[in-house]
């Protein structure tokens, strides 16, 4: 499958009346968001102009590139800074290629580097990954057409998915967001330390095999307490007192006691 088939590529408007009357400037309507960045746009222009990637007519491509950016401006779209950096690069290359070489330098000319070289390397590399992305997609598409057996009762009876620290961080972030929404009215300064928090968690673990971390996060009364709780959970994971699991992906985070309670007391 080619990129063009599944990406909405910009359409070129046929020449207008006025252009047929001797105004040769071609007009293009392009949508910025269909390009994945300046490299993608350049590849598109190179393909459209049917020029070789190894011998890019810099002046022509630069002109088209800038034309494209101007259109974006006319449409009042914000141009991502990456596009402007590339514009500067193109103009720089163009100017370097325009510089006359004096005879003293001519001798070294062979060793002199083509100012386009670095850009070509980047384009080629980017193009490789773009092709790889298409291939990955065709693989994923095939896999979407493949089914395994339906769920068994035992799958639900044992629904723990290993949770990662990333999940822990997400749960923490969500709790932080919610805390922001609530208005704070704490007057007395809380003086809970991390050691106290860890002791508190350990005490809870003495009684219960599993703790609902998401619920603990939600119960935190202040930003400070939430932070200390987060760090305490991290610490307990680090020293392997608890193991984090989820009952479903992006579900509630649970902490499971790893060691026997007697060992926790140590």
């Amino acid at each position: 499958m080619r990129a063009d088939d599944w990406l909405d590529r910009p359409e070129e408007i046929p020449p207008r009346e006025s252009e047929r009357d001797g105004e040769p400037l071609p007009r293009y309507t392009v949508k910025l968001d269909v390009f994945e960045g300046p490299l993608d746009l350049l590849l598109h222009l190179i393909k459209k102009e049917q020029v070789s990637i190894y011998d890019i007519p810099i002046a022509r491509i630069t002109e088209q590139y800038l034309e494209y950016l101007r259109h974006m401006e006319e449409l009042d779209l914000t141009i991502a800074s990456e596009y402007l950096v590339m514009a500067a690069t193109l103009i720089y290359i163009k100017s370097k290629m325009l510089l006359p070489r004096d005879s003293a330098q001519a001798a070294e000319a062979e060793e002199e580097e083509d100012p386009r070289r670095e850009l070509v390397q980047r384009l080629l590399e980017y193009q490789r990954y773009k092709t790889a992305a298409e291939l990955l997609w065709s693989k994923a598409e095939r896999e979407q057409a493949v089914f395994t057996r339906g769920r068994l009762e035992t799958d639900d009876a044992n629904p723990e998915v290993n949770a990662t620290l990333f999940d822990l961080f997400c749960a923490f972030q969500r709790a932080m967001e919610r805390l922001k929404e609530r208005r704070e009215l704490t007057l007395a300064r809380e003086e809970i330390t991390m050691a106290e928090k860890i002791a508190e968690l350990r005490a809870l673990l003495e009684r219960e095999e599993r703790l609902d971390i998401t619920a603990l996060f939600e119960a935190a009364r202040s930003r400070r307490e939430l932070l200390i709780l987060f760090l305490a959970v991290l610490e307990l994971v680090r020293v392997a007192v608890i193991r984090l699991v989820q009952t479903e992906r992006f579900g509630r985070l649970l902490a499971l006691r790893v060691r026997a309670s007697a060992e926790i007391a140590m």
Partner: protein
Amino acid sequence: MTIEELKPILEALIFVASEPITEEELAQILPEVDRANLDAALEALRQEYEANGRGLELRRIAGGYRISTRPEYHDYIRRYLKTRPSARLSMAALETLAVIAYKQPITLPEIQEIRGVNSARAVKTLLEKRLIEPKGRKPVVGRPILYGTSREFLIQFGLNDLSELPTIEDFEELGSGGS
């Protein structure tokens, strides 16, 4: 236990496993079975599936074995399940995934260098979909996180291991557009 006796047992186990089941796991369940026999039975079973022209196939995925339907029958299955293929990943996410798959472990700035655009959101999407995971930090200034593909990636993209990805150099020919 002979290979012929072993085959139906393995088939039943692979069928029941909710994720691709590895040879290790099978060997643990069947400690009485000689490892070489296990290997031979698995291979024989796989070949039978291949040869029989049935609606199911036995494949090696993410280092394990899995029984699944053959892709060519998805239309009929979807009719029954009343589902549609899930939405595709955005091009930005796919490109980022390709870069990570081939250059792993790789940091966000390195990904952005190759793609030429900010890729933070794409990386976040891929993390949320569990297609990639953090693989430690790079010992340079700022200690940026290194990313690599996950087991879920292998399963979703139907790969047994990363060596099944075509080499990136193969794309040189394919892609070199222009003339």
